[in-house]
């Protein structure tokens, strides 16, 4: 890291870091996407309890997107200073939110299927 000024990273480091930020942003879009799909599914199926959860999912996806962009610079600095770049907090949040999204989707789908089969009033 000798040929670079302050706040700059060598090309290899910059690209690694950029790929990772883009992966976070794709994941944020996927979270918002599943939020919209779940919201639509809940509305069509008249599962009004699921609707606010779907909206919260879209909002969390948007927050992750903003965070990924904002964290980009700070992480460049961490790499530059050779500090630890792992951040389990964000991974844990996204992991748990995704688990919740999948669980809510599964429950909503089970309710709809059981209802369509006539096993529910």
């Amino acid at each position, binding site marked *: 890291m000798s040929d670079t000024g302050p706040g700059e990273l060598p090309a290899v480091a910059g690209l690694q870091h950029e790929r*990772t930020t883009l992966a976070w942003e794709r*994941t944020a879009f*996927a979270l918002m996407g599943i939020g919209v*799909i779940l919201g639509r599914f809940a509305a069509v199926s008249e599962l009004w309890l699921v609707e606010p959860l779907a909206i919260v999912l879209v909002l969390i996806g948007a927050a992750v997107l903003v965070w990924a962009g904002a964290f980009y610079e700070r992480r460049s600095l961490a790499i530059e200073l050779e500090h630890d770049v*792992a951040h389990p907090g964000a991974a844990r949040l996204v992991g748990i939110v995704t688990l919740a999204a*999948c669980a809510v*989707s599964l429950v909503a789908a*089970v309710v709809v*299927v059981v209802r369509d089969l006539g096993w529910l009033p």
Partner: protein
Amino acid sequence: VNDECPDATSPRPPWLEKLVPSDPRLVGSEPDYRFTLANERTFLAWIRTALALAAGGLGAIALLPDLLGSEAIGLGLLVLSFIMAASAYRRWALNEEAMRLGVPFTPSRLPAVMAVGTALFVVVGAVLLLLSP
């Protein structure tokens, strides 16, 4: 790996430790940052795959009313997505820990489960498509 380096600072119930392992930064020494970032991208790829499967499952139920057994396929995809979402963080933390300790990765059955699972649903879907009126 967990047995070799017990986390003395935070006693957590075993089931929670298994589902959400504690902060991997507590053990070992920091690996090359590129490996940390690669591990993070792998985690995010698993997360996106779980979300895509959930979208596919909801789509199968909502959009294919005429396809025979579309509910079964949808529910199956959603179960698969739940399993992936439940394993993603755990895989990330175990891999991070292994890299920090310089030991081999814990073997995972998850890729095999996913490959067999999705292949199975594709075949079942194709058969049902042929059988549908």
